[in-house]
Structures are given as structure tokens and as C-alpha cells.
């Protein structure tokens, strides 16, 4: 998942759980059955987890542009070899 995807996943999870909570409560209250409320909510939790937990493709619509391998070789990382070897000697 990319960053936008993570944000989408979290928002979707919170909104869907609250929505299923409200739908479950209204259904249970209208039918006069506590068990109905729990079943509707449990189904909602399962649906929400199926949509928000796995890494679906629609969570990857804004991929990050990592640096290409060929570009890495053109711009080598700066080396501080003298400073590091001096530190190692003093530790011994």
C-alpha cells in the first residue's frame, strides 16, 4: 500500500465500522432483537475487514517514485572512510 492507500484504508475502516454499528443498532431496535443487532454488526465487521485489510490494487493508485537503480550508480553516496577508521582504532 502507498501512503494515500493507507489513509484511505484507515478512513474506510472507521467509517464502515461506525456505519454498520448504527445500521445494526437500528435494525435490532426496530425488530426488538438484541441478537439481530449483534449478527448484523458481526457481518459488518467481516465485510469491513475483507475490504480494508488486504492489499487491494485500489490502495496503490498513488505509487511512490523510488530512485531507479541506474540513477543510484551515477550519484554515489559520500564516503567518510578516514573518520570511521579513526573511531575504530580508538575503541580497541
Amino acid at each position, binding site marked *: 500500500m502507498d501512503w494515500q492507500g493507507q489513509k484511505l484504508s484507515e478512513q474506510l475502516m*472507521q467509517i464502515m465500522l461506525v456505519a454498520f454499528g448504527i445500521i445494526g443498532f437500528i435494525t435490532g431496535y426496530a425488530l426488538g432483537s438484541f441478537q439481530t*443487532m449483534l449478527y448484523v*454488526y458481526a457481518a459488518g465487521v467481516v465485510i469491513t475487514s475483507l475490504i480494508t485489510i488486504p492489499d487491494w490494487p485500489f490502495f496503490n493508485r498513488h505509487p511512490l517514485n523510488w530512485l531507479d537503480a541506474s540513477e543510484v550508480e551515477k550519484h554515489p553516496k559520500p564516503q567518510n572512510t578516514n573518520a570511521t577508521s579513526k573511531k575504530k582504532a580508538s575503541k580497541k
Partner: protein
Amino acid sequence: MHSFAYRANALLTFSLTVLALMCAMASVSDNFNSPSPTSQVQVLNINWFQKKPDGDDEVSLTLNISANLQSLFTWNTKQVFVFLEAEYETPKNALNQVSLWDGIIPSKEYAIFGIHTANKYRFIDQGSNLRGKDFNLTLHWHVMPKTGKMSADKIVMTGFKLPDVYR
């Protein structure tokens, strides 16, 4: 939300928080219920009335207990515990309560009932004060919810009297 386990954990904990809120709302919804229970008790017979060897009085009664407790049940009610108490005053105690019968009502269908029975528990006094005693029979009930706070109430029925002599 950078891993499967992280998202699963977040979903699980949030779903439990929402569930707790739903149960709280269900408990609050019980306050909108205004119950109107009725009951009637008759003492059909005083089977016997003796003084025990240790000095305490004991009575055995045959009772006819009928009640309609249907309005106590809501969608959030697990069961109603109902019990009948004899209440009277003695010189030693301002209030004596002796439980004579109890029962559990598991659902609304069973909440209208009439029962013809001897007292389930023994009616024994602390001492020898029951001759000619006026007493109330009070039907108490405890409404036990599926989630939330238990509530209790009662109906007091007055006008009962024990005989003046032992039988």
C-alpha cells in the same frame, strides 16, 4: 497502516469500541420503557401454624400468586427474577422480610403467570410474634438486562392477617 497485522489490530480494537458504544445505547434505550405490571396474591389456606421447639413461630401457607409482568420486558432484557416476601413488624425489628417464593421468568411469553403453591421457603419468625399478626405480601422483581444496569421494583399488597392461635 503499513502492514497486514497493523491494520487487522486497528480494525479489531476499533470494532470492539464501537460494540461497547452500541451496548451503551441499548442500555439507555431501556429508559424509554414505562412498565405497568400488575399482580394479585391470595392466601388460600393456612396449612398449619406452630411454635417450633426452639421457640420460633412457623407458618405454612397455600398461596395463589398471579401477575402480569409483560411490560417489564424490552429487547434488552435477559430475564426477570421475581420473588414474594411477607413483611411485618415486631417489637424487636421494625421490618421483617421473609421470602416465601421466587422464580425466574426467561422471556415475555412466560411473564403472565398464575401459580397455586405452598410457600417454597419456610416462613419462620425470629421469636414468637406471629399470632394475630398483620402482614403485607410484596411482589419484588429484578429486571436483568442483556447489557447495562439491573433495575428492581415491587408491588405491595396489604391486608393479610395470621390467626390468633396456633393450629
